[in-house]
Structure formats: C-alpha cells, structure tokens
C-alpha cells in the first residue's frame, strides 16, 4: 500500500520543490546584494569611518593616557573609589598579560554598538510606548531577533556587506538592541499616570511631557535595559570575531580551533572583566542619579 506511506514518514514536500524554493530565494538575494550591495555599503561608510577612527584613537593613544581617561571617567560616573581602583587593577592585569590592544579593539566596538543600540532603541521604545498597535507589531520581531541563532542572520549580512567591522556591528546591534527597546517601552508605560496627568493639566505639550516627565521617570528602567544591552553585546564578541571583527574574540576563536586552553581562558577572563566593569559602572551611575526618587533623607 504505497498510499499509506504518510503514516510512517511525514508527508514532506517534494525535494525538487524545496530545491527550487532555495534556489530562487538564494538567487534572488544574491542578485539583490549584487545590485544594491555597493549602495548599501556606501550608506554604512560613515559608520565604518567612525569605527576605524575610534579604534585607532584608542590604540594610538599611549596606554597610560587611555588608562587615566578610563579611570577618570569611571570615577566621575560612579563616584566610588572602590570601583575606580578595581577597574584600574583589572586594566593593569589585562595589559600585563599582553591583551591591551585586543581589549581596546573590543572596547571600541562595544562602545559603538552600545551607542548605536541606544540611539536606535530608545526612539523605537518611545514609539512602542505610545501606541499599542506598534507594540503588538514590534514585540514578536524582538522575540525573533533575540532567539534566532546569531549565525543565521550573519549569513545575509555577510552576503550583503562582506566580512569586516560593519557587518559585525550590525550583527551585534541586532542581537543586543532588544532589551533597550523593551525596557524603554516598559519604563514609559509604567510612569505614574497621575504625574503624567499633572503635566498635562498644567498645559505641557507632548514633547514637554516626553522630555520632562516620561523619559526622566522611565530612566531607571531604561538604564537597566542599557545595562542588559551592553552585556549582550559583549556576549556577541566571540561570534562577531568569526566575521572578522578584531578584538578579544579572535584569540578565543583561535583557542577553540587549536585547543589552546590557557589562551582561551585569559581572553575569556578579559571579556568577563570588561563585562563586570561596564555593568558595575553603569549601575553605579544609575543608582547615583536616581537616589532622590526613592526617598530617604540623604540628599
């Protein structure tokens, strides 16, 4: 009974049909990237310029000057001596173990990715908070972006733009932008209705309400989103190194393929150290700036 074969094997599509689908999709995309690749690449050109410039800046500046700047910035932002000393020690160790240059490269790309994610994510989050319809459309897209294996969306990006820094940044941003969008949306939606009503009752314009009430009050939540975004961007460093992003990810990748355990461990620890620094510093900043919103008499 040939007819009953669907009982034992799933009635799958004919192999030749599947092949046709693949061929036409791949062909179509290839044609698209061939036609528009250059145009799209030129759009991202300023981004590339900036990436190169920023990396060169961190690499060409003498290490001690970079260290002073970073440590000074950490103190300004966190106002905590403990944290500042911790960061300094971590950087000294990283440099001593010969990972200074790669760390600078990773820092530059993480910084750019984070700024890009914030610059794109917060406006998207604001739009989402303003309309339920946008929220219902954007939420599933974010779900896909977060759960789709990073390699899968690396493919079209690489096909379109080749390997290098820009596709790396795009991949990292796609992966890391979701939390800042989600938490901006949530933060604005959680703003006390009465406070917002008060602003409206005193004749505040929509933009006065946004900048003067909604964003400041949503800040703690948005900061938590930015923090998550930084962490996720760092987690993508190794994957991004597969498409030619230089930094701490490349030695890790080399270690995997060659089974260099110690090298992998050191570079991995350097990534962890960076993550902890970014996390603690951004949290300390958030705590310090939002202290008066929680009450207590310590202002």
């Amino acid at each position, binding site marked *: 009974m040939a007819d009953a074969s669907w009982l034992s094997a799933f009635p799958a599509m004919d192999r030749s049909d599947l092949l046709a689908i693949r061929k036409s999709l791949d062909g179509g995309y290839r044609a698209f990237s061939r036609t528009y690749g250059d145009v799209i690449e030129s759009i991202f050109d300023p981004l590339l310029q900036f990436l190169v410039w920023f990396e060169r800046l961190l690499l060409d500046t003498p290490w001690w000057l970079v260290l002073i700047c970073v440590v000074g910035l950490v103190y300004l932002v966190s106002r905590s001596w403990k944290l500042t000393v911790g960061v300094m020690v971590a950087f000294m160790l990283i440099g001593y173990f010969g990972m200074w240059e790669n760390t600078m490269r990773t820092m530059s790309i993480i910084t750019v990715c984070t700024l890009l994610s914030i610059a794109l994510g917060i406006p998207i989050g604001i739009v989402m908070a303003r309309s339920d319809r946008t929220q219902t459309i954007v939420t599933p897209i974010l779900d896909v972006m977060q759960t789709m294996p990073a390699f899968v969306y690396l493919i079209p990006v690489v096909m379109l733009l080749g390997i290098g820094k820009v596709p790396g940044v795009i991949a990292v941003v796609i992966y890391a932008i979701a939390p800042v969008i989600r938490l901006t949306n949530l933060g604005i939606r959680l703003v*006390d209705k*009465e406070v917002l009503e008060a602003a409206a*009752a005193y*004749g505040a314009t929509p933009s006065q309400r946004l900048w003067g009430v909604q964003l400041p009050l949503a800040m703690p939540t948005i900061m938590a989103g930015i923090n998550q975004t930084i962490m996720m961007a760092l987690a993508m460093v190794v994957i991004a190194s597969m498409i030619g992003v230089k930094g701490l990810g490349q030695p890790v990748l080399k270690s995997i393929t060659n089974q260099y355990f110690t090298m992998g461990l050191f570079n991995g620890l350097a990534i962890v150290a960076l993550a902890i620094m970014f996390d603690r510093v951004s949290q300390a900043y958030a705590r310090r700036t939002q202290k008066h919103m929680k009450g207590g008499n310590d202002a």
Partner: protein
Amino acid sequence: MPEETSKPLIQVNGLYKVFGNDPASVMADVRSGMSKDDILAKTGHAVGLKDINLDIHKGSIFVIMGLSGSGKSTLIRHFNRLIEPTEGSITVDGTDVMSLNAKGLEQFRRHKMSMVFQHFGLMPHRTVIENVGYGLMVQGVAKNERVQKAKAWLDAVGLAGYEAQYPAQLSGGQQQRVGLARALCTDADILLMDEAFSALDPLIRSEMQDQLIALQEKLRKTIIFITHDLDEALRIGDYIAILKDGELSQVGRPEEILLKPADDYVEAFVRDVNRARVLTADVVMKPPACRLTTENLNEALKQMRGEGKDYGYVFADSDYKGIVTRERIQDAIEDPSPNADLSELAEAMPTVQPDASLEDILPTSLEHPYPLPVVDGDGDFHGVVSRKSMISVLTENGETGESDAA
C-alpha cells in the same frame, strides 16, 4: 458666602461620558433611561456620567461628592479635558472648552485652571521649588521669575526652607502643600482639587482644610473640590453636588443637603453627619416671638400677654438692646420711682454670631433659659436660636419644628 454674579463662571450642560469602543452607538440607550448595569450587559459599554448640568459661580468652593465609582474623578477631569466627554458642553468664562484645539487647550490649561491631585502628582525627579514652578516652566517663564514666585507660594503654604528637597523626602501633608503651591503658582482663577486631602491622615487633613479655607478667604478662587467624605464637603463647601452612579442626586448649599435631602441616597448619606458641627446659627434661627419696640412698660406687658410669653427682646430704633422678663416689667411698674423705660430694663445676655456652629452654641444655650439672640459683628440682630429649634434639627430629619418656644 461668596457673592453671586448673575452669570455663572462655569457652566456644564448635558454632559455624558460613556466608556467603551463605540460610545456614540449606545447614547440612545443611555438617554432612554436604561440602567447602567443593563447597558453594560447589553453593549459592554460603561456609563461614566449621565446628563450632568452644573452652574458654578465665581469665588465659591463647589464640592462634588460621591462614593468610589460614582464618576466624580471622571467629572472633574472633564473641566480641563483630561477626559473627553461623549456628549455635552462645558463653558468656562465664555470659552467653550470642547471647541478648543490642541494649542488652545494647552493655553487654557496653563492660564485658566490648575489642578491638585489625590496622590499629589509631584515629579519625583524635580526639587520642591521646581515642582512648585512647574506650571510656569511649562509656560516658558524665565527661571529667575519662576523661582521667585514659586518661593513666595511655598512660603504661603508654610514650607519655606524646603526648596531644595525632593518630594520623596517630605511627608504626605507636606507633599500636598507642594501640590497646592504648584496649583496656586500659575495664578489660574480656577482650582480643581481631585480628592486632594483624601490620602492624608485625619489630623493633617483637617489642618489642610483649615489652610485651604484661610487661603480662600484671601484669594477668592473658584474651587471645584472632589471628595468622598461628606464631613469634608460640609466643612469647606459653599455648594455641594452629590453624585451617584454618574448622575447628580442633589445640588445645593450644605444646609439644604443636610436638612432637605432630595432622595433616600442623600438621606442615607447625611444620617451619620455630626450636624452640630456643620449647622450654623443662621440656619436654625427664627425671628423672636416677642419683639418689643415700645418704650411704654404697660404696652410691653400687654404685648407679652398677647404672645403668651414671659420674656421679650427689646429694640430701640430697631437696635437690639437686650432681653426683659415679665417679672422685671411688673416690678418696674409697681416701683414708684419714675422714668423707667424699657431699654433701661433690658438685660444683656450672651449673643451668638450667625456663623457659629451649633456645637459652639449649645453649651451657652444650656446656661440660659431663653433663646439666644443672634447678633453679627456689626451689632445687627438676625434672630434667635432656641434650644428646641436646635434639638429639632439635630435629632430629626428635615423639618425644623414650627411651634418654637421663641
């Protein structure tokens, strides 16, 4: 009491609010008098307000009272259009609020009305002085002027020295003072107060009520005050509107609400009110039964007999002089010494102010056998308050006994 101009400052006409997806579709049902519950069951729309008509006069405190769910907070948000009505109009000082566009509405909210919120609605990320000056900041007033003005109002509500604090560092009562100062700082004529004192504990609440009354004496704003507390309504209100299930049950002066409740609902409400505290002498006073304007003793005696009283109130040239008893007149007639006229015989007795509460009058009235004369600050006589008339308004609903001892 506020002076009433002929035209009310705020007029609400036929205001309806229906919540739901397509409010217009159920308006026919609402107008046909279908009940709130039936409409909800049939169409899934909730009726918030039904046919509200109000006239609010300049300079008065107009209290809208109702329990939770009665629609009072919805109603107050219509005045500055934080909520759009389904139907009806609100006119403020000749401006049809519903016809304003976005820009016009902003200007209207900035200059005509300010609002005080139940949970204060202060901005936690701004200092107290910035909160007070918020209305001016929105208007684009320069910082110097803003801070100066905000400081003055902060002083007026008794919070000088708290400028640099953040709201979270203040107690509830202090926060609401900041809320009040913020509302006053824009110099708007109309103040909307949405359960402004409900979140405060009782002692602070009555303190705030006193402060509001004291400020109102000076400022003469038009205040629309929402509350669920009848005692509060009676204490501060010049007029009271009682809202039930989105409909007005009764609108009137406090004593009208107390003494002539329009329906069972209002009656149930006012039953537990401490009337002695709310009602004042001028509400229960009567004209004196025996008003002696003659100087002739015999004539006075005759008049007393005619009225069946053994005392009378003496007036000379329509000025109140005092009280005189029959005994005293008789003694004077029998006394051979001449020239005793009535106003010399009149004895002084304690008088009460027209706005004194019965609570304050009762102890005095217990010490004196005769009704107490009501005399105002200028010495003008208004009437008398007898124990009997007080007892009758304090114990019985409505009717002040007609057969008074006065």
